[in-house]
């Protein structure tokens, strides 16, 4: 007796079996973008796996964190590979998450009835940024220490609750071992728990509602005409797995040829080294805040910048509810323009921020 039959006999998998057999994926010119979500999910799996392995040796204290990472990369068998995979995978994951976000934005896949899929996806993107921010400090090296000081300082600029947020993040007035403990807790417990739940919800929505068809493709269909469908299993799943393997090959090559530098141990009493900047995915925001004048119409510039970013985040969450044309299945040039400007802003400010002194 096959295992599947054994399980089927006890749990009645006919519903799942029918779902898998009947589920189809629309075939059209833009179907390539469908794979980005799966690739992001694959990297999330890599992060979970390598993160658990790192946890076996990592020690979250100001006196031991740096040394424990050093031990991982020098003494632990394949520790260097695990750490490099974790660091590179984190960056690729955020890059792919952004690509997935923009593809969904441009294709208007957020439109009715997929509003909740979009909201859960945006929240997942924010969570990925939270993972990046909290994980960056964990090796307790000089660059991470001062970048976290700057980053948490920005959180302190939030009007009304800034001081509270800053102390909550840092565990005091300054970045210390207490901050490291908090970031560690966030990185390995709080964020993974929320993320796992949201990923499950996001996948459930995607499976329940199927893949969205771009408005342009949909409008070209004649009445009664249907898009050709590709069976989800095995045709689409095998293509997804193929994409995952490509991602893993790229990741392995990056980890082997461009090892993630550990840097020097953080010294809170050392002068701030030159060229302190956050990870690339925060560069655009960081550089924007640098350009904002100290006071605008009597309001402190940094406060204004942080509020603007907060409003932008809120706008992103609410996009499916604001874009009424897309929800009616009509072309929505305004929101395409917003997406294009957003992409242009992020790319240009990240590049400028990278080269700015």
């Amino acid at each position, binding site marked *: 007796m096959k295992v599947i039959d054994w399980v089927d006999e006890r749990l009645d998998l006919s519903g799942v079996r029918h779902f898998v057999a009947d589920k189809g994926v629309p075939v059209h010119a833009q179907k390539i973008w469908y794979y980005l979500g799966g690739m992001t999910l694959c990297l999330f799996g890599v992060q979970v796996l390598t993160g658990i392995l790192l946890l076996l040796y990592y020690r979250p204290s100001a006196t031991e964190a740096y040394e424990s990472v050093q031990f991982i990369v020098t003494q632990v068998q394949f520790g260097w590979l695990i750490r490099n995979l974790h660091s590179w995978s984190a960056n690729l994951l955020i890059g792919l998450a952004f690509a997935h976000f923009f593809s969904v934005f441009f294709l208007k896949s957020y439109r009715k009835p997929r509003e909740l899929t979009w909201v859960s996806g945006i929240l997942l993107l924010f969570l990925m940024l939270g993972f990046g921010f909290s994980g960056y400090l964990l090796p307790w090296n000089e660059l991470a220490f001062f970048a976290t000081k700057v980053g948490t300082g920005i959180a302190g600029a939030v009007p009304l609750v800034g001081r509270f947020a800053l102390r909550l993040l840092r565990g005091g007035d300054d970045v210390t071992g207490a901050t490291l403990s908090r970031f560690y807790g966030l990185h390995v417990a709080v964020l993974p728990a929320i993320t796992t739940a949201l990923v499950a919800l996001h996948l459930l929505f995607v499976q329940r509602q199927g893949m969205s068809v771009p408005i342009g493709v949909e409008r070209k269909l004649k009445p009664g005409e249907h898009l050709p469908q590709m069976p989800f299993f095995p*045709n689409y799943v095998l293509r997804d797995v193929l994409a995952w*393997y490509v991602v893993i*090959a790229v990741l*392995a090559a990056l980890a082997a040829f461009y090892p993630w530098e550990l840097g020097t141990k953080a010294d809170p009493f050392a002068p701030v080294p030159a060229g302190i900047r956050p990870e690339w995915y925060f560069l655009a925001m960081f550089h924007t805040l640098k350009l904002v004048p100290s006071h605008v119409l009597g309001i402190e510039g940094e406060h204004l910048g942080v509020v603007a970013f907060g409003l932008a985040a809120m706008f992103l969450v609410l996009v499916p509810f604001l874009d009424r044309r897309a929800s009616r299945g009509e072309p929505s040039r305004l929101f395409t323009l917003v997406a294009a400007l957003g992409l242009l802003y992020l790319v240009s400010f990240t590049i400028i921020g990278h080269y700015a002194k």
Partner: protein
Amino acid sequence: MLMSDASSAAQRGSRSSVAAGPVLARLCVLVVLLVSTHPLYAQSPPAANGCVACHSTQADSRLATPAALFTEPDVHRESGFACVDCHGGSASSSDVARAHAPAEGFKGKPAGQTVVATCARCHSDANVMRRYAPKQRVDQATEYAASVHGQQLAKGDLKVATCSSCHNAHGIRRISDAKSPVFPTNVANTCATCHTDEKRMAGYTLPGGGALPTHQLADYQKSVHYAALTKGNDPSAPTCNDCHGNHGAAPPGVGAVTNVCGTCHAVFAQKFAASVHQPIFDKGCVECHGNHAVVKPSDQMLSAAAGGACAACHTAGDASDKGTAAAVAMRTGIERLKSGIDDSGALLRRIKNAGIEVSDEQLALREAGTKLTLARTEIHGFEVGRVEAILADGMKVVEAVARAGQDGVAELRFRRRGLAVSLGAILIFVVALGLKIRQIDRRDRTRRASL
């Protein structure tokens, strides 16, 4: 002026104290009486500085310049002193003759011993100095009297430097002021004002009998000390007064050179003191390193060949010359350790760039560098065995680091081979998957066509 203010302040204090109580009042009167017996307090000129007011308007620069300088940053004016405190006379009199009358205590422009005596009235009095600069020494006049300058002055030589030659007479700045002529970075030029002047130095001789040279500044400007002071911004680097003394300035005696250099280079002096060269080298450190033009020492100095410091006494290539053999042995060991450190360092940098963590090895290599420094220090004891023992310790570290470096290279090869194998396996799987997808798609198309 400050003295009179202090005096009157003490008097004001005494009046209020009388009202407060008889014991305190008596104490205050006693203090006032004691203070007022000092000659400076006894003068108590009026507050107005008529000297400056009048001298500033003079066309003769010899009269106007001192007044102008005194109104610029001047430690004495800032502390409340006036012209009359050094020159005497009356600052309040508008009558020129009366202001400069001997009856008013006018002394005119001090010169020679009078300069020293004028400054010493306050600067050799601990009670006075305690009120303005309590940490300042009060033995400058005594030191000066023991210096070559002071001794020449005592013989009636008025060309020699006195207090005002180095510190200025008016516009005197604190020694911590970077514009002061005796601020560390300015000392050499201040001394050179006279010591590079061939006419002025003519007739003066060195303790050994030779003519006093005038190229000390030029020599000093070539030295590692000058570079540290002016380019390295290290105010603790030695300038003229650090070796010759300042108020007690004199050339260090032949036997004192090692002690003078040893003030900073204590370990070198200690090693040299116990060395075979100590009784032979008349000028101590100067024999190899020079005096004013002390250049950065190099390993090339350890050689009996031309250009080496040993060449003056030892013969290169002479097998019977123990000194030459010792120099060759020590130099060879140093060069071996140096190249070992360089090679291992280059290897570590290469594998570090490729992603191998080498912090421990780099730390160990620093330890080898320390051994090299220790060996270079030990050379001053001129005992080959001791130097070689230190170098051998350094070589052990270098060899261990080199082995770790080679392990790192092997690890890199292993990683790259592993990656190539993994990528190969992934590629095969991807191709197989691609073929499978094509097969499934073809099967589906056939099935749809048959329906």
